[in-house]
Structure formats: structure tokens, C-alpha cells
């Protein structure tokens, strides 16, 4: 039997909410119907706090904190929405759009993309920063799948689902900062990977059109992620 869980009381946007001590602010907010925008977060994968869209204000803390990796504390006072947060979230989203070439109209994920939806949700109707238009590769060497680095937002969902759920750890991130790229094995073409099991989980969790099944045209990429909770439970039972 588990030890008795400690209950914590905190305030989100002025309202008192109760939580288990090991929960994150994002968990508790969503449980209480408070929406905090996220891109890299995916339920059932380890949280990494990478995209920074879930930044929230915590009373007494000078810095904004990512809600997906910040645990609740007794008496904590959290604000999930403010003009300051709106400004930062919009800037973050705009910068994501400038870093690669996101051409929604010709993208395999058009109409089924978390990045596109986020722009609409945050009212981002144009990008104020200069587009970088980097020259980045497309790898179509895999028999079933492709990766278009033009659409990658470095959320690392593919890396995490491959390592944590499939157990293959084919994907990882190399380089740093603006030169970061997801890659397979020892940076060999995906089709030559000796660890890839062809399971397609990475393709299903990709929030954009970076990973896709071959043969899909514009707007045809669909996703299936309801397998995650089952597989996660199965893996935990094996431990």
C-alpha cells in the first residue's frame, strides 16, 4: 500500500485548489479546468520544460516558472494568465515560427498541428521577428516514415516516446541552441538505423509535420496517441 498522500492547498488565479504534494502546477491547473498552453508537454511522457509556453507567475518568485516541471507547494500563489505572460508566450511562439520553415499551406500536418493551433489560440496573426529561413535537411531514407527538419520545433516528444515507451532510444538531440537537431542513432540516415523498430510512435506524437508517414499529402497526416497510457502502464508493471 502506498503511504498516505499529503494534500497541499494552493491558489491558482486567486482560487484555492487542493493537490497532491508531488503534482505539478500544470497537472493541478488542468484538473481544475484551467488551461495553460503547452507544446512540448505530452501526458504520459516525462516533462522537460523545453518549449516554455507554460510559464506561470508565482508570487514571491522573480522568475517565471514552467508549470509542467514545477511542483506545487503549500500556500503557493500562481497566476496562469496576465499581460506579461501573454507577451512572453506570444514572443516564444513567434520565435519558434522564425527558427525553421513552417509553411502551413503545403505541410502534411496542415489542419492537424499543435503549432498551428497554438498560433490561432494565442491570437498570433503574424510574426514580428525576422524569419531565419535556415537550410535544413529532409530525410526520406526510412521505408515507412520521413523527417522534415523544416517543421521540427525541438519539443523532443519523439526522443522521449522512443526512449521511455518503445525503449529503443533511436532519437536524440545533437548540437545546441539554434543549431540543435533531432537525429537517429549515430547521425546516420533514419533508414539505416539499427535501433529503430519501425513502430511509428515518434510519428504519432510529433506535434507538427516534422515526422510523418510516407505517402501522405498536404493535410493528410493524422495522429493516434491513445496508445500512450496503456503502454506506459504496461512498462511500469514490468519494473
Amino acid at each position, binding site marked *: 500500500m502506498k503511504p498516505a498522500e499529503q494534500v497541499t492547498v494552493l491558489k491558482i488565479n486567486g482560487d484555492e485548489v487542493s493537490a497532491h504534494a508531488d503534482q505539478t502546477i500544470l497537472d493541478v491547473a488542468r484538473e481544475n479546468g484551467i488551461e495553460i498552453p503547452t507544446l512540448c508537454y505530452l501526458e504520459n511522457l516525462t516533462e522537460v520544460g523545453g518549449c516554455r509556453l507554460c510559464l506561470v507567475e508565482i508570487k514571491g518568485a522573480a522568475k517565471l516558472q514552467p508549470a509542467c516541471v514545477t511542483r506545487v507547494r503549500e500556500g503557493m500563489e500562481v497566476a496562469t494568465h496576465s499581460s506579461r505572460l501573454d507577451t512572453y508566450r506570444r514572443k516564444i511562439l513567434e520565435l519558434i*515560427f522564425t527558427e525553421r*520553415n513552417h509553411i*502551413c*499551406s503545403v505541410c502534411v500536418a496542415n489542419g492537424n498541428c499543435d503549432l498551428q493551433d497554438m498560433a490561432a489560440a494565442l491570437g498570433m*496573426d*503574424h510574426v514580428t521577428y525576422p*524569419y531565419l*529561413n535556415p537550410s*535544413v535537411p529532409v530525410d526520406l531514407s526510412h521505408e515507412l516514415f520521413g523527417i522534415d527538419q523544416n517543421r521540427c520545433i525541438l519539443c523532443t516528444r519523439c526522443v522521449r516516446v522512443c526512449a521511455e515507451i518503445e525503449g529503443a532510444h533511436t532519437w536524440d538531440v545533437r548540437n545546441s541552441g539554434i543549431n540543435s537537431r533531432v537525429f537517429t542513432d549515430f547521425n546516420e540516415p533514419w533508414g539505416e538505423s539499427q535501433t529503430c523498430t519501425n513502430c511509428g510512435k515518434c510519428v504519432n506524437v510529433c506535434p507538427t509535420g516534422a515526422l510523418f508517414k510516407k505517402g501522405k499529402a498536404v493535410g493528410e497526416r493524422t495522429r493516434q496517441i491513445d496508445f500512450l497510457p496503456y503502454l506506459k502502464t504496461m512498462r511500469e508493471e514490468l519494473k
Partner: protein
Amino acid sequence: MMNGESRNGPAKPRLATVWLDGCSGCHMSFLDLDDKLVDICLRADLVYSPLVDTKTFPDFVDVTLVEGAVSSQEDLEKIKHIRDHTKFLVALGDCAVTANVPSMRNPFGANAILRRAYIENVTLNPRVPDRVVPPLLNRSSPVHTVVKVDVFVPGCPPSAETIGYVVNELLDGRMPDLSGRTRFGA
């Protein structure tokens, strides 16, 4: 006809549309307003457009819809002139708002694109044009990076309904609120 004058009663607001580096899809979507175009024409004078004969942009226009990215020297000169003579400039569609498909050449630069189109893929007299065809800018850019834009309407193309809403709001003297109406790639 100057602003403030009209042969038929009070002056109507003056509407223009221009087509820079785009596929004309935004104009096609505008035409999809069908019978509602008649209502717009009853409320506004369409003073300049690929759809009318006038060849020079008038001195004063209330609302100009711009389709397309700024990709050539000609686009750049046109849009600067249009901005100077327009009250409300609307970036219509993803090419005007983000440079969209035209920007797919940006990672390579203009020279590589011209070489590809006019030399590498041509068997008869391959040569990059140096007259008539407007010189390409090295990058294709969203309209707001070269002139001030008042209203952004993403979409590829924005629906006829969205365009009709934007035009009618502006003609009514209101700034359109596009939240929930359109998105990139729509």
C-alpha cells in the same frame, strides 16, 4: 473622380486590391463572395484591382487588400507607393502575412533559383532574363517587413466569408477581430 466627389450622391469609401507574389487564390476566394460582391460594390467604389481596368494606383484609397509576398523590386516599389496612398492596408492571406510558399526559396537565395529555373532546367537558349521580368529580391518577404500593415488576415486562402467580414467591418469603420475566424494554412 476625387475623394469626396461622386456623380451619384455622397462619396463611397474607396476599395482597392493588389496582387504581388501570390497565386491569385486570395482574389479567387474574394470572388467566391458571389452575390455578396454586389453588396460590397454598392457600399464602396472598387478603384483599383486586377479585376478592373485602371492601370495606375489612385491617390487616395480607404482600404487596400494586398495578396502576395514582396519578392521583386517591382513588388517593393508598388507596395511602398500603395502604402503612401492607402488608409487601411490589409495583408490578405498567408503570402502577404508570412511570405508562405514564395519564401520557400529563401534558404537558397535568388541567384540559385534563377539558375535553376532559367539555366539548369532549360535546353533551348538558357539565359537569366535581364529585361522586362522584374529583378527578384534575394528574399521573399512578408508585407509588414517593408511597410506598415493595419490588418493581418492569415489563411491560404482566407475563406470568402472571412474576407467579406474584414471588408465590411473596415467599411463600417471598425477594426475586424479575426480571432477564431481564420488561421495560417486555413
